[in-house]
């Protein structure tokens, strides 16, 4: 399954990259490859903005505005209600 095109905030500064390969290791959607000892973005639209690559890049070559893409959470925040996302909601029957 593929999500929307040309929407993610992922950025890679290839000139800073040291080719350690952590981004390739942590990405759950194979967005990165190592090419000539540098990371390259090979499938940008597959990015789900989880932020694992940016968090684990030792030289801050990767940046992304990470967050949980959850309509319930975003609506709750917009309406000033608590409950940041469905994954923490717990109203027992």
């Amino acid at each position, binding site marked *: 399954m593929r999500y929307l095109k040309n929407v993610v905030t992922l950025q890679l500064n290839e000139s800073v990259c040291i080719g350690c390969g952590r981004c390739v290791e942590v990405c759950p*959607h194979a967005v990165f490859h190592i090419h000539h000892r540098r990371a390259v973005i090979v499938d940008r639209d597959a990015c789900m*903005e*989880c932020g*694992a690559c940016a968090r684990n890049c030792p030289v801050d070559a990767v940046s992304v505005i990470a967050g949980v893409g959850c309509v319930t959470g*975003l609506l709750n925040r917009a309406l000033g209600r608590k409950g940041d996302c*469905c994954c923490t*909601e717990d109203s027992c*029957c």
Partner: protein
Amino acid sequence: MNSDKCCCKQSADCGGSSQHVRTLTPDWGVSDFLGMIRVRLGCGRMSYGMEPGLYAMGSPTPESPVLATANYKLTVDVLRRELGDRDLWLLVLDTANVNVWCAAGKGLFGTAELTRQIEATRLAQHVTRRRVILPQLGAPGVAAHKVKSQTGFHVVYGPVRAKDIPEFLDNGQDATPEMRRVTFPLGERLALTPIELRQQFRAALILVLALGLTPVIWRGWDQGLWNHGLRGAMAGVACWLAGCLLGPALLPWLPGRAFWVKGAFLGAALAAGLALTGVVQGLLPGLGAMLWLGAGVSFLLMNFTGCSTFTSLSGVKREMKAIPAQIAAGTMGLVLWSTGWWL
């Protein structure tokens, strides 16, 4: 399931390298199964936790691998079941009873908590190799290089799924590209639907009651309730089931990339189905059903982005621009639907 074998109440009381290690076995008891069913239904999820700390599976030696995980009990249960009879250490982090993926997104499964547990459990005294295996989906919260500089422990990211861990360990702790990829197969999508159904239950009930009872005003109890009302209630239930169960199940096959588009198609198809089976009668109510079911299922399925494993925050924000259109279509649809009551 787990016996609390411990030498003392607090690790600080112990000397040497044997402080506060509990044991875990791979076997599930009845309470583990019942607990899983309960939390899958969304009940008591936030209190379904385990005591954080260091656990021994089998008879681990100082050479045995260390696996870190979250203290959501279902996470630990699945992990110990998949690990079977292997000898290893489990470092359970305090993630406030939230699973690895969600906890990493919130920073609960993070660099600070991992380094804290490594120090609190005196992990370095239990093992010779300063190496800890993390689930790959914990990576959004953990900076491996910072853990290394703060504790001396090297972080290895293991596979996404617990079932791949035995093969990963046998392969010299090397994950294949397939083990690193997140998928979203039918079984996983369906496992999330009971919570969706429950979360939207109240809204669905209000809709069903409104559509079921309002026609009484114009048509009286007999015609209003048992003819128009019953058909409205059926359409309301269909909307709820389509948005929370059928949509997630059919996700890869619904047209479009945006979830609101997929939902709109499904809702419109549902309206057509209800017209063909005679649940919806007449041109204007039929058009109305197309609009309000399209809008309703579109909104419900858009909510499923929060459960999916491939949608991005930026993408979801863009999708939410459809909300005004959904409200307009829903309102217009319900007005057209109501013409069946008073025209």
